[in-house]
């Protein structure tokens, strides 16, 4: 994957797009988990959410830029 992507002639770091994509994935996970009420098994839901985001983002980031 290239380091920068030209969006409408503006160079955008591709990690920014990855970031936005991860936010979207997080939102989907969040909705599913909330729908089934699974957050009751988590001690600190918002911390958990941030941690999930970090895991997602780092995993994708490390895959793309080893």
């Amino acid at each position, binding site marked *: 994957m290239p380091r920068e992507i030209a969006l409408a002639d503006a160079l955008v770091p591709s990690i920014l797009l990855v970031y936005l994509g991860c936010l979207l994935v997080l939102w989907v996970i969040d*909705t599913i988990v909330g729908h089934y009420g699974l*957050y009751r098994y988590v001690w600190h839901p*918002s911390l958990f959410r941030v941690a999930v985001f970090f895991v997602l983002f780092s995993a994708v980031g490390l895959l793309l830029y080893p």
Partner: protein
Amino acid sequence: MAAVPSDVSVKRPLPWLGEFLATERQAWIFVFKCMLAFYIAAWLSMLFQLEQPSTTMITVSIVMHPHSGMVLAKSFYRAIGTCAGSLCGVLLMSAFPQQRELFLVSLSLWVGLCAGGAVLYRNFMSYGFVLAGYTAAIVALPAISNPYNVFDSAMMRVSEVMLGIVVAGLVSDMVLPERLRQVLRSAARSHYGHFIEFARGSLGGAIPREKMEEAHLRFVRAAVQLEDLRASVIFEDPEARARSSRMQLLNLRYMATATSFQSLHHLINRLQRNNHPRTAGALIKLYAPVGEALSPPPTESTAPKSLAVRLEACEATLPALAAELREGLRQDTELLLEFDSGTTLLYRFVSELRDFAALEATLRETQGRLKGNVERVDFKRANDYAAPLIAVVRSFLTMITLSVFWLWSGWPFGPSAMLLATIFSGLLATSPAPLSATANTWIGYALGMLAAYVVVFYLLPGSDGFAMLMLATMPFLMIGPYLTTRSATLPGIGGGYTLGYVYILALKNPMVYSPEHFFNDAIASLFGLMMTGMAFMIIPTVIGTEWLRRRQLQQLRRQVSLAATAPMEGLLYRFESANRDLFHQIVQFTKPNSTESRSLLAWGLAVHDSGRAVIELRQDIHHADLPPPLCEAMQRAVDALAHLYDAPDRARWEQADRAVDHAIALTMQTLPQMRATCQPALAHLLQLRTALRDDESALAPYIVKVPETPHAT
């Protein structure tokens, strides 16, 4: 600062001390969170080598708020506001790189529109608009003398502002969070409990008008508060998001039940006043089983589920009891009609209350998925465009005056003044007393800069490294957030202090010490703030003034026209919610128990009563097969009523009364032939007449003569 008290202190014999420490604890938690957010933001922005770490810190100080909880909702709208603002800044810069006049006019217009948006959307969205204006100004103003740089500078500013928003959001959400969901749950439960309690307590029959008005005020506040909470909880809690439409439906049922309850009691009250105690007594007797159903014996559970079951059982017994009571009454057509309309209302109330309790029961089941789908309903806000429009004009004029002054004088610190004016014209536009708020903010701002002077020129030069930076700046910085939590006694000072301190501190890596820049910037920003205050003097705010209240009252009366003319689809919820939202805004700034608030309350109740009856009547017209002449007469009655509420006077009252009477007479004539379809319509017409002739309602001054026992036939 180890002022965070432990829970041990609560057990002490001094109750006031415990209370004091509890509020102190809240305050210091907020201060701690602010400090954490500030220094994380500063550290990260220096680590990422952003150009102006102070922008990040200013953003944090604008965004951090003691009412934590709706953090994610706010951050979402703030991020959108920042993006929109920066885009607008870049667009303006590319459109008018050489024409500074056009550029400044359009920038002022943008800032004005953002301030208007902040006033229009009174909830957490308003901050998004403030930030949209602020970002546009902060992106475009520094680049004005160097247009080639605007894109880079815009990227830098957006990164700084976004970093501030993200850090503030994460810190408030993760560190010692105050879960709004708990607040929502307990609020919903307490409102439910109150309502059931109130319905049960009225077992003895009539409730005095004042108590009813008080209760109405409470129901209105409850409905609006629940909606506000729901709208923000869905952002932070996916579980609540899954229940969102159910909660909205619950709120609708709550509002509808409260309205039916009030209508029923108005009828009973009027019957008692007009010397028909037997009819009133019969209705009260009919109400007795409902009261019993609501007060289960101590051995049974008081959960909503069992309450719904009891209400359903009670509902089945009501028609028999009603028939029995009807037999015992004096056989006067008029009185029997009143009784019938009362029973219809009571049936409606009981079935609505049962639905309400049943839905509350399903919401309390927290285990697993929710079963079944519910109807989608939407809480409608009632907006008035006068206040936002005035805010737009005011902010625009402030900005344009500052720009003209800047262009003519060639003042190098004009942008600072404009930036401050941008921030505060948005933030203060929603305040009901902006003049004193501006004065307080100004004082706070000046104090903050004084503190920053000491820090920048005496403490910072000797410090080294990030830890020393924290040590040098923290003691004075802490004062700001602490004062913010005391905003009940010192409104505005805390916010002004923090912003002034952080703004003029202008932390950088490496730090720049320049006394003349410091003083020039300080004077410019104080000047900008002063201009905002002057704009509030010249174009005073309309929020909380009598003029706006009169206007909103007019709008509230128009709700009856809405009920009479709008398409039926989803009308009930639209009517009930917009009504409450509007009424909430009207009574927000009136003194309780003043004559004004009395009359407003009376109007609120009258509009509620008649509007609901009109909607029910229109449903009858649409759905039941009534003969066409009857439908026409009813439609005329509905129109006449809408006409009356548009601009109440005696002639219109007479007209409406005659139209309703005529419709009643016609319905009575057809009643023997088609009892099933005419009965509900007749009940609603009677309810309309009750509301019209109620000599304690707001319509009382327009009543021409009170016909004691008018013979409709």
